[in-house]
């Protein structure tokens, strides 16, 4: 996007704030891992915090919050196939024929 210098100067302030938030969330991620949560709760919390961090990087550092439509379409397609990819192991697990491996 074509932007003027004064717009960019405003962005820089946002980058600093996002940086601080990312640092705090990193400490939260590590801190939560030391709580004795069940594996399911630990996975949910860790992925929730990672998703927030990832969204901040994508939205502000990669400027996805203000981008052309075609990029949103490309990413929507990617997200769809990514979800399919993540779902593939569940098909195997539910079939009851998953490979049991050691460690």
């Amino acid at each position, binding site marked *: 996007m074509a*932007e003027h*210098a004064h717009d*960019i*100067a405003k*962005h*820089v302030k946002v*980058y*600093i704030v*996002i*940086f601080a938030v*990312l*640092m705090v969330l*990193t400490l939260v*991620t*590590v801190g939560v*891992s030391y709580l004795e949560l069940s*594996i399911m709760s*630990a*996975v949910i919390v*860790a*992925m929730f*915090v*990672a998703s927030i*961090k*990832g969204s901040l*990087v*994508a939205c502000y*550092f*990669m400027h996805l919050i203000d981008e*052309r*439509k*075609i*990029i949103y379409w*490309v*990413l929507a*397609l*990617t997200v769809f*196939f*990514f979800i399919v*990819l*993540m779902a*593939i*192991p569940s098909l*195997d*697990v539910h079939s009851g024929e*998953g*490979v*049991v*491996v*050691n*460690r």
Partner: protein
Amino acid sequence: MSVAEIKYIDKPHPITGLTNGKLGIWLFLASEVMLFGALFSSLILLRVGSSDWPHGKNILDVPLATLNTIILITSSVTMVMAWASLKMDRFDKFKLYMGATIALSCAFLVIKFFEYSPKFSHYEAFLKPAAVSKYEDHLTGKASISGHIEKQTDDEIVFKPDTPKGDHGADHGAEHDGHAEHAEITIDRADIHRLTSFGPWHSNFLGIYFTMTGLHGLHIIGGIVVNAWLLFPGSVMFRKERERFEGRVECAGLYWHFVDLVWIFLFPTLYLL
């Protein structure tokens, strides 16, 4: 023979509203999502199918990985600041921030080296079922002993075992603390079913750990090469074709933020869960 001109490298394409370079890097990143997605999917499959998946914290070095997370996030900020500096016509600041990005990337790799290397000098001896009772006092719930090899002959191995947890990560710290290791233990080679270092061949967990972090590390190296080129020989373009150069830095930045984004998910998945 006429030379075909590549169009829309500095001005947006009228249909997409983007330069071809920017559309290209986003399509590349989409393919990268699928590459890492396949590995995350494999990790889930291995983990769900395993009867005994180790806790990442007990095998890996969380403090070093946390430091690397902080370094990589900081490098993402310096990268975006490098791009912003160009937009604000501050070429001197661009050089400063891009230099910082490269320095932080190198620091990430150095720390990764210190994280990887102890694993190759650390061993686990898996005992034969019949020999388990012989070493019962040294076992911690599993039929194996892990630690450093102090001495070995054709018949036996002298081991300096890990802490009572029997984990690799804790012992790594113990090397420096000098208080957590147990007394040496001599194991007959005939009692060992399998002797292995904590390399990628050790287990499925370490196999997927080295694969994912190794591939991520290769992406870091790729980023360093591109960023170094933009900082030194490639920066000549700033004076001649400024918009095109800004576009290149923007594309390199998008790649670099993606590498950061992958690590944001790798860190908790491998190290903390």
